[in-house]
Protein backbone atom coordinates (compact mmCIF):
# COMPACT_ATOMS: atom_id res chain seq x y z
CA UNK A 1 0.00 0.00 0.00
CA UNK A 2 1.22 3.52 -0.75
CA UNK A 3 2.11 5.98 2.05
CA UNK A 4 -0.09 8.93 3.11
CA UNK A 5 2.30 11.38 1.41
CA UNK A 6 2.12 9.44 -1.84
CA UNK A 7 -1.64 9.23 -1.43
CA UNK A 8 -1.84 13.04 -1.21
CA UNK A 9 0.09 13.34 -4.47
CA UNK A 10 -2.27 10.81 -6.06
CA UNK A 11 -5.29 12.72 -4.73
CA UNK A 12 -4.12 15.93 -6.37
CA UNK A 13 -3.50 14.05 -9.62
CA UNK A 14 -6.91 12.40 -9.31
CA UNK A 15 -8.53 15.84 -9.29
CA UNK A 16 -7.01 16.32 -12.75
CA UNK A 17 -8.82 13.16 -13.80
CA UNK A 18 -6.34 10.34 -13.31
CA UNK A 19 -7.57 8.28 -10.36
CA UNK A 20 -5.44 5.24 -9.63
CA UNK A 21 -6.33 1.91 -7.94
CA UNK A 22 -3.48 2.48 -5.44
CA UNK A 23 -5.22 5.61 -4.20
CA UNK A 24 -8.54 3.84 -3.83
CA UNK A 25 -6.84 1.04 -1.89
CA UNK A 26 -5.17 3.59 0.40
CA UNK A 27 -8.37 5.54 0.97
CA UNK A 28 -10.21 2.34 1.88
CA UNK A 29 -7.76 1.76 4.72
CA UNK A 30 -6.89 5.31 5.89
CA UNK A 31 -9.56 7.46 7.51
CA UNK A 32 -7.54 10.69 7.70
CA UNK A 33 -6.65 10.50 4.00
CA UNK A 34 -10.27 9.73 3.16
CA UNK A 35 -11.33 12.87 5.06
CA UNK A 36 -8.65 14.88 3.22
CA UNK A 37 -9.83 13.48 -0.11
CA UNK A 38 -13.43 14.46 0.69
CA UNK A 39 -12.33 17.99 1.55
CA UNK A 40 -10.36 18.27 -1.68
CA UNK A 41 -13.27 16.91 -3.68
CA UNK A 42 -15.58 19.42 -2.01
CA UNK A 43 -13.25 22.31 -2.92
CA UNK A 44 -12.97 20.99 -6.45
CA UNK A 45 -16.75 20.75 -6.79
CA UNK A 46 -17.21 24.19 -5.24
CA UNK A 47 -14.72 25.75 -7.64
CA UNK A 48 -16.21 24.01 -10.64
CA UNK A 49 -19.71 25.18 -9.76
CA UNK A 50 -18.71 28.79 -8.94
CA UNK A 51 -20.34 31.18 -11.42
CA UNK A 52 -18.32 33.45 -13.70
CA UNK A 53 -18.98 37.13 -13.11
CA UNK A 54 -19.71 39.67 -15.79
CA UNK A 55 -18.98 43.40 -15.90
CA UNK A 56 -21.72 46.02 -15.88
CA UNK A 57 -23.87 46.31 -19.05
CA UNK A 58 -22.24 49.63 -19.93
CA UNK A 59 -18.71 48.20 -19.77
CA UNK A 60 -18.38 47.62 -23.54
CA UNK A 61 -19.54 51.18 -24.28
CA UNK A 62 -16.99 52.56 -21.80
CA UNK A 63 -14.16 50.58 -23.38
CA UNK A 64 -15.16 51.66 -26.88
CA UNK A 65 -15.39 55.30 -25.76
CA UNK A 66 -11.85 55.04 -24.35
CA UNK A 67 -10.67 53.42 -27.59
CA UNK A 68 -12.27 56.20 -29.67
CA UNK A 69 -10.65 58.87 -27.46
CA UNK A 70 -7.28 57.17 -27.93
CA UNK A 71 -7.72 57.06 -31.71
CA UNK A 72 -8.90 60.70 -31.82
CA UNK A 73 -5.88 61.79 -29.78
CA UNK A 74 -3.49 59.90 -32.07
CA UNK A 75 -5.10 61.41 -35.14
CA UNK A 76 -4.96 64.92 -33.68
CA UNK A 77 -1.25 64.52 -32.89
CA UNK A 78 -0.58 63.14 -36.38
CA UNK A 79 -2.50 66.03 -37.98
CA UNK A 80 -0.62 68.57 -35.89
CA UNK A 81 2.74 67.10 -36.77
CA UNK A 82 1.82 67.03 -40.46
CA UNK A 83 0.59 70.68 -40.57
CA UNK A 84 3.10 73.20 -42.14
CA UNK A 85 1.97 75.90 -39.71
CA UNK A 86 2.86 73.67 -36.77
CA UNK A 87 6.14 72.79 -38.49
CA UNK A 88 7.08 76.48 -38.82
CA UNK A 89 5.87 77.25 -35.30
CA UNK A 90 7.98 74.38 -33.97
CA UNK A 91 10.98 75.57 -36.01
CA UNK A 92 10.54 79.15 -34.70
CA UNK A 93 10.22 77.84 -31.18
CA UNK A 94 13.36 75.76 -31.60
CA UNK A 95 15.29 78.76 -32.97
CA UNK A 96 13.98 80.92 -30.13
CA UNK A 97 15.06 78.32 -27.61
CA UNK A 98 18.54 78.13 -29.16
CA UNK A 99 18.84 81.93 -29.08
CA UNK A 100 17.69 82.01 -25.50
CA UNK A 101 20.16 79.29 -24.65
CA UNK A 102 22.98 81.25 -26.32
CA UNK A 103 21.91 84.38 -24.48
CA UNK A 104 21.91 82.47 -21.24
CA UNK A 105 25.34 81.11 -22.16
CA UNK A 106 26.58 84.70 -22.64
CA UNK A 107 25.17 85.68 -19.27
CA UNK A 108 26.80 82.69 -17.69
CA UNK A 109 30.08 83.59 -19.37
CA UNK A 110 29.88 87.18 -18.06
CA UNK A 111 29.09 85.92 -14.60
CA UNK A 112 32.02 83.57 -14.80
CA UNK A 113 34.40 86.41 -15.80
CA UNK A 114 33.16 88.56 -12.92
CA UNK A 115 33.59 85.68 -10.56
CA UNK A 116 37.11 85.04 -11.79
CA UNK A 117 37.97 88.75 -11.38
CA UNK A 118 36.60 88.77 -7.85
CA UNK A 119 38.56 85.66 -7.03
CA UNK A 120 41.71 87.09 -8.56
CA UNK A 121 41.29 90.27 -6.50
CA UNK A 122 40.76 88.19 -3.40
CA UNK A 123 43.88 86.25 -4.35
CA UNK A 124 45.83 89.43 -4.78
CA UNK A 125 44.49 90.78 -1.51
CA UNK A 126 45.69 87.62 0.11
CA UNK A 127 49.12 88.16 -1.38
CA UNK A 128 49.13 91.79 -0.27
CA UNK A 129 48.29 90.79 3.27
CA UNK A 130 50.97 88.14 3.15
CA UNK A 131 53.50 90.64 1.78
CA UNK A 132 52.61 93.17 4.47
CA UNK A 133 53.07 90.54 7.12
CA UNK A 134 56.40 89.53 5.63
CA UNK A 135 57.54 93.13 5.49
CA UNK A 136 56.46 93.64 9.04
CA UNK A 137 58.26 90.54 10.09
CA UNK A 138 61.40 91.33 8.15
CA UNK A 139 61.42 94.93 9.28
CA UNK A 140 60.97 93.90 12.88
CA UNK A 141 63.83 91.43 12.49
CA UNK A 142 65.94 94.14 10.83
CA UNK A 143 65.12 96.57 13.61
CA UNK A 144 66.22 93.97 16.13
CA UNK A 145 69.51 93.28 14.31
CA UNK A 146 70.02 96.96 13.76
CA UNK A 147 69.44 97.64 17.42
CA UNK A 148 71.80 94.82 18.37
CA UNK A 149 74.54 96.07 16.06
CA UNK A 150 73.92 99.59 17.25
CA UNK A 151 74.22 98.51 20.91
CA UNK A 152 77.41 96.55 20.13
CA UNK A 153 78.85 99.57 18.35
CA UNK A 154 77.75 101.69 21.30
CA UNK A 155 79.41 99.27 23.67
CA UNK A 156 82.65 99.28 21.62
CA UNK A 157 82.51 103.07 21.37
CA UNK A 158 81.85 103.31 25.11
CA UNK A 159 84.82 101.00 25.82
CA UNK A 160 87.00 103.04 23.49
CA UNK A 161 85.91 106.29 25.10
CA UNK A 162 86.51 104.82 28.53
CA UNK A 163 90.11 103.71 27.61
CA UNK A 164 90.82 107.07 26.07
CA UNK A 165 89.58 108.80 29.18
CA UNK A 166 91.70 106.52 31.39
CA UNK A 167 94.75 107.25 29.21
CA UNK A 168 94.14 110.96 29.46
CA UNK A 169 93.83 110.71 33.23
CA UNK A 170 97.01 108.67 33.40
Amino acid sequence: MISCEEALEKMLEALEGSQTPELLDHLAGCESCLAQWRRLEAVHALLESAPALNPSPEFKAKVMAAVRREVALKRAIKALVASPLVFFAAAALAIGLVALALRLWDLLLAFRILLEMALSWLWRLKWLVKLALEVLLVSSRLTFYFALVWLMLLAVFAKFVKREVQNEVA
Partner: protein
Amino acid sequence: MEEDLSPAIRKVLSGEIEAFSEIVEACQGAVYNLAFRLLGDPAEAEDIAQEAFLRAFKNLSFYDSKRPFLRWLLAITYNLSMDYLRRRSREIRAVKAFSALADRQNRNSEPSAMEMQELLGRLDAVDRAIVVLKYWHGFSLKEIGEIVGLGEGVVKVKLHRARLRLADELEKGGRRP
Protein backbone atom coordinates in the same frame (compact mmCIF):
# COMPACT_ATOMS: atom_id res chain seq x y z
CA MET B 1 -13.38 27.52 -25.71
CA GLU B 2 -11.84 30.50 -27.50
CA GLU B 3 -13.67 31.89 -30.46
CA ASP B 4 -11.72 32.93 -33.52
CA LEU B 5 -11.12 36.63 -33.28
CA SER B 6 -8.64 36.84 -36.17
CA PRO B 7 -11.07 38.57 -38.61
CA ALA B 8 -11.94 41.23 -36.03
CA ILE B 9 -8.26 41.74 -35.19
CA ARG B 10 -7.40 42.13 -38.87
CA LYS B 11 -10.20 44.68 -39.28
CA VAL B 12 -8.98 46.71 -36.30
CA LEU B 13 -5.42 46.62 -37.61
CA SER B 14 -6.64 47.88 -40.98
CA GLY B 15 -8.29 50.87 -39.31
CA GLU B 16 -11.85 49.72 -38.57
CA ILE B 17 -11.80 50.53 -34.89
CA GLU B 18 -15.47 49.67 -34.38
CA ALA B 19 -14.53 46.03 -34.99
CA PHE B 20 -12.79 46.16 -31.62
CA SER B 21 -16.23 46.01 -29.99
CA GLU B 22 -16.49 42.39 -31.23
CA ILE B 23 -13.31 41.61 -29.34
CA VAL B 24 -14.61 43.38 -26.22
CA GLU B 25 -17.91 41.51 -26.49
CA ALA B 26 -16.17 38.14 -26.79
CA CYS B 27 -13.59 38.63 -24.03
CA GLN B 28 -15.13 41.02 -21.50
CA GLY B 29 -16.46 38.27 -19.22
CA ALA B 30 -13.13 36.46 -18.97
CA VAL B 31 -11.10 39.66 -18.49
CA TYR B 32 -13.46 41.10 -15.90
CA ASN B 33 -13.76 37.79 -14.06
CA LEU B 34 -9.98 37.44 -13.71
CA ALA B 35 -9.56 41.07 -12.62
CA PHE B 36 -12.41 40.80 -10.16
CA ARG B 37 -11.22 37.51 -8.65
CA LEU B 38 -7.78 39.04 -8.15
CA LEU B 39 -8.81 42.46 -6.86
CA GLY B 40 -12.08 41.64 -5.13
CA ASP B 41 -13.69 44.97 -5.94
CA PRO B 42 -16.14 45.37 -8.86
CA ALA B 43 -15.29 49.00 -9.62
CA GLU B 44 -11.53 48.40 -9.53
CA ALA B 45 -11.95 45.23 -11.59
CA GLU B 46 -13.83 47.20 -14.27
CA ASP B 47 -11.10 49.86 -14.32
CA ILE B 48 -8.38 47.24 -14.70
CA ALA B 49 -10.39 45.34 -17.34
CA GLN B 50 -10.91 48.58 -19.28
CA GLU B 51 -7.20 49.38 -19.03
CA ALA B 52 -6.38 45.86 -20.25
CA PHE B 53 -8.58 46.30 -23.35
CA LEU B 54 -7.12 49.72 -24.04
CA ARG B 55 -3.57 48.39 -23.70
CA ALA B 56 -4.43 45.48 -26.00
CA PHE B 57 -5.83 47.96 -28.54
CA LYS B 58 -2.70 50.14 -28.40
CA ASN B 59 -0.37 47.14 -28.75
CA LEU B 60 -2.44 45.13 -31.20
CA SER B 61 0.22 45.50 -33.88
CA PHE B 62 2.65 43.64 -31.57
CA TYR B 63 0.25 40.76 -30.97
CA ASP B 64 1.58 37.44 -32.26
CA SER B 65 -1.32 35.90 -34.19
CA LYS B 66 0.08 32.40 -33.59
CA ARG B 67 -0.81 32.79 -29.92
CA PRO B 68 -4.47 32.61 -28.80
CA PHE B 69 -5.75 36.16 -28.38
CA LEU B 70 -7.64 35.55 -25.12
CA ARG B 71 -4.51 34.18 -23.45
CA TRP B 72 -2.56 37.26 -24.53
CA LEU B 73 -5.33 39.52 -23.23
CA LEU B 74 -5.55 37.63 -19.93
CA ALA B 75 -1.78 37.90 -19.50
CA ILE B 76 -2.15 41.70 -19.85
CA THR B 77 -5.02 41.64 -17.33
CA TYR B 78 -3.04 39.50 -14.92
CA ASN B 79 0.01 41.78 -15.10
CA LEU B 80 -2.08 44.93 -14.65
CA SER B 81 -3.92 43.40 -11.69
CA MET B 82 -0.69 42.25 -10.03
CA ASP B 83 0.91 45.68 -10.55
CA TYR B 84 -2.16 47.25 -9.01
CA LEU B 85 -2.05 44.91 -6.02
CA ARG B 86 1.66 45.50 -5.52
CA ARG B 87 1.29 49.27 -5.80
CA ARG B 88 -1.45 49.54 -3.29
CA SER B 89 -0.69 46.51 -1.09
CA ARG B 90 -4.30 45.60 -1.39
CA GLU B 91 -4.11 42.00 -0.25
CA ILE B 92 -5.81 42.60 3.09
CA ARG B 93 -8.37 44.96 1.63
CA ALA B 94 -9.15 42.47 -1.11
CA VAL B 95 -10.03 39.83 1.45
CA LYS B 96 -12.46 42.22 3.11
CA ALA B 97 -13.86 43.29 -0.21
CA PHE B 98 -14.62 39.71 -1.15
CA SER B 99 -16.98 39.41 1.77
CA ALA B 100 -18.58 42.76 0.98
CA LEU B 101 -19.09 41.78 -2.61
CA ALA B 102 -20.49 38.44 -1.66
CA ASP B 103 -23.17 40.28 0.31
CA ARG B 104 -23.81 42.79 -2.45
CA GLN B 105 -23.73 40.64 -5.56
CA ASN B 106 -24.79 37.22 -4.44
CA ARG B 107 -27.68 37.91 -2.15
CA ASN B 108 -29.82 35.41 -3.99
CA SER B 109 -27.10 32.95 -4.88
CA GLU B 110 -26.21 29.69 -3.22
CA PRO B 111 -24.31 29.91 0.07
CA SER B 112 -21.44 28.02 -1.57
CA ALA B 113 -20.86 30.88 -4.04
CA MET B 114 -20.56 33.41 -1.21
CA GLU B 115 -18.25 31.05 0.59
CA MET B 116 -16.14 30.77 -2.54
CA GLN B 117 -15.62 34.54 -2.72
CA GLU B 118 -14.35 34.60 0.85
CA LEU B 119 -12.22 31.52 0.41
CA LEU B 120 -10.48 32.83 -2.68
CA GLY B 121 -9.58 36.00 -0.85
CA ARG B 122 -7.50 33.96 1.57
CA LEU B 123 -5.13 32.75 -1.15
CA ASP B 124 -2.20 34.88 -2.24
CA ALA B 125 -2.70 36.75 -5.51
CA VAL B 126 -0.69 34.38 -7.75
CA ASP B 127 -2.37 31.26 -6.34
CA ARG B 128 -5.72 32.99 -6.72
CA ALA B 129 -5.00 33.76 -10.37
CA ILE B 130 -3.99 30.14 -11.00
CA VAL B 131 -7.18 28.81 -9.41
CA VAL B 132 -9.31 31.28 -11.38
CA LEU B 133 -7.60 30.47 -14.68
CA LYS B 134 -7.94 26.75 -13.99
CA TYR B 135 -11.56 26.63 -12.84
CA TRP B 136 -13.27 29.58 -14.46
CA HIS B 137 -11.36 29.61 -17.72
CA GLY B 138 -10.47 25.94 -18.04
CA PHE B 139 -6.87 26.51 -19.07
CA SER B 140 -4.30 23.72 -18.86
CA LEU B 141 -1.36 24.05 -16.47
CA LYS B 142 0.91 24.91 -19.42
CA GLU B 143 -1.46 27.64 -20.64
CA ILE B 144 -1.78 29.06 -17.12
CA GLY B 145 2.01 29.10 -16.89
CA GLU B 146 2.18 31.15 -20.11
CA ILE B 147 -0.31 33.68 -18.72
CA VAL B 148 1.22 34.14 -15.29
CA GLY B 149 4.81 33.74 -16.46
CA LEU B 150 5.66 30.58 -14.51
CA GLY B 151 6.73 27.08 -15.46
CA GLU B 152 4.18 24.27 -15.72
CA GLY B 153 5.71 22.48 -12.69
CA VAL B 154 5.51 25.59 -10.51
CA VAL B 155 1.89 26.15 -11.54
CA LYS B 156 1.08 22.53 -10.66
CA VAL B 157 2.63 22.89 -7.21
CA LYS B 158 0.89 26.20 -6.59
CA LEU B 159 -2.47 24.84 -7.73
CA HIS B 160 -2.13 21.84 -5.42
CA ARG B 161 -1.08 24.07 -2.55
CA ALA B 162 -4.05 26.36 -3.22
CA ARG B 163 -6.47 23.44 -3.23
CA LEU B 164 -5.09 22.15 0.08
CA ARG B 165 -5.29 25.65 1.57
CA LEU B 166 -8.87 26.02 0.38
CA ALA B 167 -9.75 22.60 1.81
CA ASP B 168 -8.24 23.63 5.17
CA GLU B 169 -10.06 26.97 5.11
CA LEU B 170 -13.29 25.23 4.24
CA GLU B 171 -12.86 22.93 7.21
CA LYS B 172 -11.94 25.81 9.52
CA GLY B 173 -15.11 27.53 8.40
CA GLY B 174 -17.06 24.55 9.72
CA ARG B 175 -18.34 23.44 6.36
CA ARG B 176 -17.59 19.78 6.12
CA PRO B 177 -18.41 17.89 2.98
